[in-house]
């Protein structure tokens, strides 16, 4: 294997900024055994947070896991560097579904390689619902009626505002002031009926305090697996589909180790173990080949194409748009 050759100049550690419960801890141990590099993991709650940390500087990260729509911003702000593919022998562009790999390339340069993808839908307790539902309109309407005091929305502008925009049939990514004003009106109207504004919805859903929530695929699957009454669905008018990537920030203190770590994590064997541990879909066909059939057939993780097609990838503008940020702040502090 070529990795061994690098071992001498890799240094002793790599810092990985990622999302919670998004890795198989075992893999890091193996990585350290092979290369002598210990992986230090920092976990974050939102892309905004990651961006803020990088903007403030001094983050000390070597690898981080941005979501598709944020990558152009990083490039524009000169916060990440193009990847040197010669150091990523395990990367095989052809193996990736283009839909989940595109965003990694900006201005013709590859800045990020895909990690996982997924959607953001809604999960609800079917015993509390009179009928199953599949639209953001129903989600918000029910919040103000049957589910009053029992609904959770993300503490995350992209999905919370985006899904509110969907209520009116606007684009998930809209930054149009008028459309945002409508979304704000809806959110403010809904707020008194919310159980919480939080991205940590699993405990409340599981113990029955909350009956309905915005929900990321993998976690929807986890809850559904443990408690079958909790259903997961995508909004039929649309919503978010996303893809996470590995990228290397500018001035990464351990650049060589960073490459080694990414290369290690996209090794199909390793990645398959990762996917088994966290449950999110992978865009790499080499990995899918290693996963059990029933996983790939799961309707929550791999929704039907027509449902998937109406979902939108997040747009770069939403990340930096001051109006969306302010709207979220006003919503939370109202």
């Amino acid at each position: 294997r070529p990795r061994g050759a690098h071992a001498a100049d890799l240094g002793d550690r790599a810092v990985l900024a990622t999302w919670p419960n998004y890795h198989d801890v075992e893999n890091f141990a193996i990585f350290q055994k092979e290369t002598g590099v210990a992986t230090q993991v920092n976990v974050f709650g939102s892309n905004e947070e990651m961006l803020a940390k990088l903007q403030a500087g001094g983050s000390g990260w070597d690898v981080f896991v941005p979501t598709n729509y944020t990558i152009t911003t990083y490039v524009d702000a000169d916060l990440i560097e193009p990847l040197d593919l010669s150091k990523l022998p395990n990367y095989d562009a052809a193996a990736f579904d283009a839909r989940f790999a595109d965003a990694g390339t900006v201005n013709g340069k590859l800045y990020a390689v895909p990690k996982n993808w997924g959607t953001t839908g809604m999960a609800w307790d079917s015993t509390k619902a009179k009928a199953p539902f599949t639209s953001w309109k129903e989600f918000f309407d029910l919040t103000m009626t049957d589910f009053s005091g029992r609904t959770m929305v993300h503490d995350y502008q992209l999905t919370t505002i985006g899904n509110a925009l969907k209520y009116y049939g606007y684009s998930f990514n809209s930054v149009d002031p008028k459309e945002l004003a409508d979304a704000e009106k809806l959110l403010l109207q809904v707020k008194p009926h919310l159980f919480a504004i939080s991205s940590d919805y699993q405990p409340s859903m599981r113990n029955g305090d909350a009956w309905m929530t915005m929900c990321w695929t993998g976690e929807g699957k986890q809850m559904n697996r443990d408690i079958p009454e909790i259903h997961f669905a995508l909004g039929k008018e649309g919503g978010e589909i996303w893809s996470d990537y590995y990228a290397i920030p500018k001035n990464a203190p351990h650049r060589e180790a960073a490459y080694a770590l990414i290369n290690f994590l996209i090794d199909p064997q390793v990645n398959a173990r990762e996917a088994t541990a966290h449950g999110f879909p992978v865009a790499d066909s080499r990995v899918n080949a290693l996963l059990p059939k029933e996983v790939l057939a799961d309707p929550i993780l791999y929704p039907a194409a027509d449902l998937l097609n109406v979902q939108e990838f997040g747009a770069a503008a939403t990340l930096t748009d001051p109006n969306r940020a302010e709207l979220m702040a006003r919503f939370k502090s109202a």
Partner: protein
Amino acid sequence: MRIYALAVYVFLYLPIGIIALFSFSAGRSASQMQGFSTQWYAKALSNPFVIDALKTSATVALISAILASVFGTMAALALSGMKGRVRVLFDALIYIAVMIPGIVIGIATLIALVTVFDAVNPWLEAATGWRLSMGHGSLIAAHVLFTMSLVIIIVRARIEGMDRALIEASSDLGAGPLATFWQVTLPMLAPAIMAGFLLSFTFSFDDFIIAFFVAGSETTLPIYIFSSIRRGVTPEINAIGTMVMGASLMLLVIAQLTLRRGKAPGH
């Protein structure tokens, strides 16, 4: 009265009990008891991130408590009996340092340090190949700011309550200033310094908000716990909490013993 006190103790210990109880759950949920097992302790102890975070926290807390105690005691010694503008200035700084919310200190320190580092780094890197970055150093620095101020306040109160005659007695018995300091002043201040040290350690060990901003790529235990709590909590967190509490208890007992030993009636 007694019943009231009992009720307050129940209030204080209910959550602790819950944490300890769930830490022995066999299930995956941190807020449900599903059978008994100690697997989460094993998990926590074998989780390199937990160990890493614990190490970072302990190191940072220890170093910042030591620095805070040393520098704080030094400053308290210099400030006691001092008058004039310098004294007023320091009083104001101590006062402000204790009063500013952690969030503000965290953010402000982050911005200030990054600005300084950015200015200094190119030059420094050219000269030495090293770069300044956020991490242990900045975390310790930010913690010491608050804890040192705490130490100054505690130690200064002790110095002011200390009998000057003891120092004179030492000098009278032939001990020079330095000898007096080591043999009399320092031992007399020891309980206060110890209290300051323990408070500093606790603060630093348990601080989340300052660390969140200035820790750079380091993960302290509270940061780890916070991250874990954000999504999908397992009883591992409870196990960690229970273990930390056990350790704290031990520290507390040690502290109690030290303080009692140094405490003389009338002092």
